[in-house]
């Protein structure tokens, strides 16, 4: 139902003041569609990250590596080598798959905190590699804008094509959701959760956790790479500070925790809320009435990073299960008295009372 609503959004021109940031209050305007497409893209990546972090319990601080490899390999194949769309896509996924397999196998030699640090270090190394601009492939600091004559015209990033890119982002989210749903509901998915809950017991049962951890890592990384491809289609250019820095990792982590780690729709909701808030806060900070506020108020409020970071801290301390946990708790609270009252009303209870 919701899906259908989102699918037809580009076709209608509703006017929704205040809900969408600033001048974007027409639902199918280019800006709005772009924000929504970014929401869907990050929702997909957050879902993939949730498989590894929420379900398998692996705190990786390196998902940005695969996001960046998705963006850059795709960009380089399209722009530097002028490959057609599908070979470029295939190359991107193969490269990311091999990267994830090799680096994952090394990083998974350690666990817990050390794993987090090692994945962070690998991601940072990749960032340096991109900045280094080897063989003039990545464009270094200045980045690399997509330009490919063979790209189908509906994808060329022009304003009129935002609609098709929006649908691609939505399709990416739907496919990712389906894959994640299938995997987490399968036997493999149950092993993932078992690793999170008690890895030692799995060892005793004769199940080697390593392969499953690697599988979870690779799946999550591939989804991040595919998300990178979608990102490049939406934004049209790759800049290391926006695409490959640790900030991306931390954003995805925050999305998952805000939404509720280990729940599928929680990750999606967290990502959509995060991206939406980020864009909205930026628009508000630019309003003329806002810039006249006194500095001690204006400076903190004009920094989405500060507000989102503070919100995140509050969530971690006071709302441990994230939005999904909150909703779950509220609905069980409502369910609990009804169960009790049903018991009171039942014949058995009345018989005991007598």
């Amino acid at each position: 139902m919701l899906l259908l609503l989102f699918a037809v959004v580009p076709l209608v021109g509703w006017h929704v003041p205040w809900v969408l940031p600033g001048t974007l209050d027409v639902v199918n305007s280019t800006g709005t569609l772009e924000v929504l497409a970014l929401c869907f893209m990050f929702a997909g990546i957050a879902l993939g990250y949730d498989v590894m972090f929420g379900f398998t319990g692996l705190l990786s601080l390196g998902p940005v590596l695969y996001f960046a490899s998705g963006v850059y390999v795709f960009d380089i194949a399209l722009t530097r080598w002028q490959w057609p769309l599908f070979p470029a896509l295939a190359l991107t996924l193969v490269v990311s798959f091999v990267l994830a397999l090799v680096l994952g196998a090394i990083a998974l030699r350690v666990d817990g905190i050390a794993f987090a640090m090692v994945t962070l270090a690998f991601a940072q190394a990749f960032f340096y590699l991109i900045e280094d601009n080897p063989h003039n492939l990545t464009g270094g600091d200045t980045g690399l804008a997509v330009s490919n004559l063979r790209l189908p015209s509906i994808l060329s990033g022009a304003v009129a094509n935002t609609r098709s890119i929006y649908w691609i982002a939505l399709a990416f989210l739907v496919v990712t959701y389906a894959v994640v749903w299938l995997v987490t509901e399968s036997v493999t998915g149950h092993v993932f959760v078992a690793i999170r809950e008690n890895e030692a017991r799995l060892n005793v049962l004769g199940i080697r956790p390593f392969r499953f951890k690697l599988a979870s890592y690779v799946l999550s990384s591939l989804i991040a790479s595919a998300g990178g491809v979608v990102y490049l289609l939406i934004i049209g250019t790759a800049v290391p500070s926006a695409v490959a820095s640790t900030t991306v990792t931390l954003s995805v982590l925050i999305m998952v925790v805000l939404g509720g780690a280990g729940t599928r729709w929680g990750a999606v909701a967290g990502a959509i809320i995060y991206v939406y808030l980020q864009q909205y806060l930026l628009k508000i900070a630019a309003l003329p009435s806002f810039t006249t506020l006194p500095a001690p108020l204006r400076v903190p409020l004009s920094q989405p990073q500060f507000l989102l970071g503070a919100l995140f801290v509050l969530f971690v301390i006071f709302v441990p299960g994230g939005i999904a946990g909150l909703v779950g708790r509220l609905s069980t609270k409502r369910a609990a008295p009804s169960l009790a009252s049903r018991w009171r009303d039942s014949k058995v209870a009345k018989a005991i009372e007598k």
Partner: protein
Amino acid sequence: MSVFLSITFSGVALGAIYFLAASGLSLIYGLMDILNFAHGLFMTLGAYAGWAVAVHLPSSIGAPGLFALSVVAAVLGGALAAGITEVLFIRPLYGRPVSQILVTIGLDLAVVGLLLGGFGSNSVRIPVPLWLIEATKVGSANLPNVDFLAIALGLAVLFSLEWFLRRTRYGIIIRAGVENRDMVSALGIDVGKAFTLVFVIGGAMAGLAGLLYAVVFSGDLVSPLQGDSLLIFAFIVVVIGGLGSIRGSALAALIVGFVQDYTNLYLGGHSGFAEVGNLSVVLLLALVLEWRPRGLMGSVA
């Protein structure tokens, strides 16, 4: 030869700063199982505290005096930030290690965001006395005086930390806590106090590291994102040295400093190799993990 000597020397200075940044992280991890992301923030805040003191005090104190006060302010600033973090944000989350990591990440983002809002991405300059900018001639090599300062302070901290951990009551409690936290609290010792203490010590060292890094390697400049980029190398040093080991951190800091400096010198000049120093450090990390997943001096437990 003189180039080799001065590069070696600056490698040791870099190692000294990495040691200051990493040993606190390592202690915090060893005692509390926390990957403290806010450590980069402590470094940045320490450097800003040093800058604020030097800029706002009257210059009649004299440049060397002002700089000494900057160093003190950096240490105190880092310690204060760390103490507040532990009491307000870590303490409510005892027993939830992942949440503790997450809260330090959020804190780092929020306060760095605030600094970015206040200072923009522009750097501020810490005033330093003239002799810190000069160099001393040793044999045929010109060795910068700031490197001497970093090495001297690094060694001083290493020895006082070793003394504190081995000879004082609280130090022994901390070491025992790193060994086996449950046993220490079972003996009726308040581990909570040790947690705060470890955070304060780590924060003080981080503040010092932040100031020294600004003075030695970034031309006296301080920027909001500086600590976070230093933090990643501190993490690498901690993992290579072995989580929870101070001597491991010292050794690994030195090795990482050397590797970064030598590769930068011998390979960094080629085009497309500007970041080779940073990359080779990560490669070193991967090699050490392949060979010894617990790090150089990590405990077996």
